């Protein structure tokens, strides 16, 4: 029976090539987009090189100062003043590190202008992250205490500046009229990992900007590494306790905040704080609900399309249905046949989507669109998407099958009219 179903399925698919194309395009394109988007989100959110400790890290990425009387507010990264006077006093994290948000600067290599992204960090940054050192080593607290003008660069910068594969450790590089000695070369990471990605890493004390300014807002992001995610509540509580002791106010004439707020949040939470002010867990729930809602809505499109195509096909196949009924097929058996056809169609669509996804992801990873991109297929999402497609495939087969089963044999034989 199944062999016969398969034969007829492939014959039907071959017979109406355009319908088949529309159906397969709908299924495979939807799955492709879903897989690529989730792969990208996965890439953004999940722990990946060099942030292998992301699952046990909290981030302080924003400070909000508000003047509720004047309706004025200021929000942005935290300052060095805030980090040194408050954050570094925390005792619950296993380790505390920080890095500035990246800026760009021009450097000159063999008279060619090279635009570089640079970041200031402390020594702990290198212990919290897991960069692969191709050569040399990271700078340490000792280098910072010694006021050493040292730097770590990524392999892409080394290749651009000194030539591909040429050793860079011990050489100097001039940035903003200051000579830095290169002490380490790391394997670069994709720019989408914005908290850690950079071409050049410099000790924070070499920044020209006044870092002693008594302001809560600055240009830094703090990494709080916990022993495990189980310590998060303790660390968050300690941070809020510290926040409650931070004096509110500013030396500025025109901005007098009377309220401040900042949170130590997970990566997903801090990433989403761009869009919402709610706490990390609620944000996560919002994100997942929005993603599931989006995925279902997105996947319902090919399902509706399939129902439509199937209904069109049913009339065309009314005569076949009539013949099968005349020779002993019950409505139930014919319903199974239709559903089997839809499942096969969906599975073919799934295979095409998988092949295309591998191709698209390979293209994104190798095209240089995102430097160091390391997107991978999220198999969980792919399997769930295939299962959801199969459910839609089933549903889209059931309705036409139900309509078909109501046809009198003689009506079906006449072509369903």
């Amino acid at each position: 029976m199944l062999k016969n179903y398969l034969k007829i399925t492939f014959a039907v698919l071959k017979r109406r090539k355009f319908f088949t194309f529309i159906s397969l395009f709908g299924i495979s394109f939807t799955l492709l987009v879903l897989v690529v988007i989730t792969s990208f989100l996965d890439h953004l959110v999940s722990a990946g090189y060099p942030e292998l400790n992301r699952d046990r890290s909290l981030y302080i990425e924003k400070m909000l100062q508000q003047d509720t009387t004047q309706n004025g507010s200021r929000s942005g990264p935290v300052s060095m003043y805030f980090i040194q006077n408050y954050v570094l006093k925390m005792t619950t994290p296993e380790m505390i590190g920080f890095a500035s948000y990246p800026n760009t600067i021009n450097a000159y290599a063999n008279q060619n202008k090279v635009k570089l992204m640079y970041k200031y960090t402390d020594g702990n940054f290198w212990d919290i992250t897991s960069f692969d050192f191709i050569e040399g080593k990271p700078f340490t607290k000792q280098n910072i205490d010694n006021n050493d003008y040292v730097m770590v660069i990524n392999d892409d910068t080394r290749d651009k500046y000194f030539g591909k594969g040429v050793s860079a450790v011990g050489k100097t590089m001039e940035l903003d009229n200051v000579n830095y000695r290169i002490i380490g070369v790391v394997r670069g990471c994709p720019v989408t990992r914005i908290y850690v990605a950079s071409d050049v890493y410099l000790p924070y004390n070499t920044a020209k900007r006044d870092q002693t300014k008594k302001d809560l807002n600055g240009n830094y992001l703090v990494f709080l590494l916990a022993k495990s995610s189980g310590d998060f509540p303790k660390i968050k509580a300690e941070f809020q306790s510290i926040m409650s002791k931070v004096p509110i106010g500013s030396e500025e004439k025109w901005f007098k905040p009377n309220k401040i707020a900042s949170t130590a949040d997970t990566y997903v939470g801090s990433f989403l704080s761009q869009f919402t002010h709610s706490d990390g867990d609620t944000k996560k729930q919002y994100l997942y609900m929005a993603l599931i809602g989006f995925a279902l809505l997105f996947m319902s499109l090919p399902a509706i399309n399939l129902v439509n195509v199937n209904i069109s096909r049913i009339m065309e196949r009314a005569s076949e249905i009539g013949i099968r009924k005349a020779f002993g097929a019950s409505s139930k058996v014919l319903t199974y046949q239709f559903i089997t056809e839809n499942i096969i169609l969906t599975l073919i669509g799934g295979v095409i989507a998988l092949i295309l996804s591998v191709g698209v992801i390979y293209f994104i990873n190798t095209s240089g669109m995102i430097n160091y991109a390391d997107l991978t297929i999220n198999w969980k999402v792919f399997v769930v998407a295939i299962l959801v497609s199969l459910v839609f495939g089933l549903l889209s087969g059931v309705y036409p099958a139900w309509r078909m089963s109501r046809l009198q044999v003689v009506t079906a034989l006449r072509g369903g009219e």
Partner: protein
Amino acid sequence: MIKLKNIEKVYRTSTIETLALNEINLEVGKGEFLSIMGPSGCGKSTLLNIMGLLDEPSKGEITVDNETISGFSDKKLAHFRNQKLGFIFQSYHLINDLPVLDNVELPLLYRSSSASERTQLATEALQKVGLSNRMKHYPTQLSGGQKQRVAIARAIVGRPEIILADEPTGNLDSAMGNEIMDILINLNKNDGTTIVMVTHDENMAKKTNRLVRLFDGTQVM
């Protein structure tokens, strides 16, 4: 074998009511070869469809092998058609997407028979109609007469007791028509299959045991 009692068929649209069959009482005996004749639109095919349980009468009772059909579930009706009846249609009604052998195997698909058993029975049926050399062809590659022989093979493959043929020679030239008719007569005489055939052709009808004439939905002979 088949008993029709006070069969009436009315086609209704929102504006018109057409009486297609009126008070038909007919009995077909086991092993009989009956032909139904009448002008176009007189209700011959409607009557055959009702006898073959492909259509429901508006009124009346059908009994096949002492079983009254009314109230049969879809599943039971399907099983009954599969076991007892075989159909031959004027326009063949073959599935063009399937090769000849698969078309012939069709009634066996809805029985509990193995694939090898199905192939064996279908091959035998095709041998009977002289088409064993066309098993892998598709219906579109066959002539009209060959298609009708495939349809006969499909009708007999499940060894039904009754074959209902709706103008089986209607689309064929006389030589091919005679060939088909010979196959049907053989089936009736040698295998004892009961056959009810609708035809326009007086010569074909003469070859059967009994003739029933319809006129405007009423049995006149």
